[in-house]
């Protein structure tokens, strides 16, 4: 049941990058909200009620109605509370933003997840895939649609920064846990600089968990995956997806 004091409630999980996207957007808009922690493995009745299709976090509850899927939620937030816009006004810019959001969730995130859930030759191939994807983003930042900008959104963080940034911290975490090179500053100088600037923003620091907690979490999941190495690929992919 909705609390009378809050009209916005977020069902999320502390280590879930899609939850962080929504938390960050709400903070950037200066919106107060109630937060309810959910367990991936055991979704609460509330989560099952509000996201019956996917049964996953995040779910935003506003005025008794629910919105799910992080990029859908971000646009809902932007269109409902119109101060401090996170989407650009220009239609072509909006299309470019949406395209690279799609790319992030369709290509980059699964490749990063695969680095985490695989080993040996499979992992090497996944690392190469991550590099290929980062090269495309590096090129856009250096010479393409985002040339000369501090953030994808311009001088301030926008929707694409939120989508890409909330998840990019896993690159550094996986580098340490898996002992692979994912985001070396020499190969990806502009992306690296963008990520550093993003992570320095006050609202971002308040949203993303401390790296020690993320490292401990990632090590735990990796151990579990390795000990279940004969398990079906779907449970491994679920764990990878939940952390990437």
């Amino acid at each position, binding site marked *: 049941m909705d609390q009378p004091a809050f009209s916005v409630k977020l069902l999320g999980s502390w280590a879930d990058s899609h939850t962080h996207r929504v938390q960050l957007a709400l903070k950037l808009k200066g919106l107060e909200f109630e937060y309810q922690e959910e367990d991936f493995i055991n979704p609460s009745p509330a989560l099952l009620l509000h996201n019956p*299709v996917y049964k996953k976090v995040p779910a935003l509850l*506003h005025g008794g*109605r629910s*919105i*799910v*899927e992080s990029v*859908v*939620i971000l*646009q*809902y937030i932007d*269109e*409902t509370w119109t101060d401090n816009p996170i989407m650009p006004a*220009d*239609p*072509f810019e*909006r*299309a*470019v933003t*949406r*395209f690279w959001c*799609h*790319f992030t969730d369709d*290509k980059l995130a699964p490749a990063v997840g695969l680095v985490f859930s695989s080993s040996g030759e499979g992992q090497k191939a996944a690392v190469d895939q991550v590099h290929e994807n980062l090269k*495309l983003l590096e090129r856009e930042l250096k010479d393409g649609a985002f040339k000369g900008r501090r953030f994808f959104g311009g001088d301030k963080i926008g929707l694409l920064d939120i989508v890409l940034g909330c998840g990019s911290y896993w690159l550094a975490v996986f580098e340490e846990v898996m002992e692979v090179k994912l985001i070396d500053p020499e190969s990806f100088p502009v992306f690296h600089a963008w990520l550093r600037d993003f992570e320095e923003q006050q609202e971002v620091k308040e949203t993303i968990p401390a790296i020690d907690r993320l490292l401990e979490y990632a090590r735990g999941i990796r151990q579990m995956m390795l000990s279940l190495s004969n398990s079906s690929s779907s449970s491994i992919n679920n764990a990878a997806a939940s952390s990437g």
Partner: protein
Amino acid sequence: MADQPKEVKLYGHGFSGYCTMVNSALKLKGVAFEYVEEDLQNKSEALLSLNPVYKKVPVLVVDGEPIAESLVILQYIDDVWKNPPLLPEDPYQRAKVRFWADYVYQKLVPPVYRIRTSEGDARKKAEEEFRANMITLEDGIREELWSAGGSFINGEKPGLLDVIMGSCHTGLKYLEDVAGVKLVEKDRTPLLCSCMEAFVELDVVKGP
């Protein structure tokens, strides 16, 4: 409000449902555009340089600048050419349309791909999954979006979901013939059937 583009060009392929979506949306909005048919077995240099990330159709080129990915293109078209609107005004309604549009790509497209490319039990499973997900889509739209009136999900006139589903109609019928299996069930998904059938009857869709 941004200036309207001067030159609009669509790279597409006749048998691609995604290209039909973009083609139809442009026609519904009365946009003048040039169409370039691509040979998907022998993609042009132009296409490969316009869509280096995915190397696929459709690509909409607007005053020389490319936009790829059908759902991105459809929302762009709706942002630039306002009438008739494909998305509702209200942010919650818009969120619901976006959610179900994304559902089509996440939950209907993959089983169709598996129906086309697999055999035996794997194919049967994909067929069952497709039918079940169509029912989820139907029920979800009925509960969250639809108000009775008109043949379309959007009412009297087609909206984004009608463009998406309607553009898949021909491909689904073809797949049913080739695979010899019923994928679209009128008694289980009457609203989806009505919107697809009404969509392919629209003058802008039937026409040249």
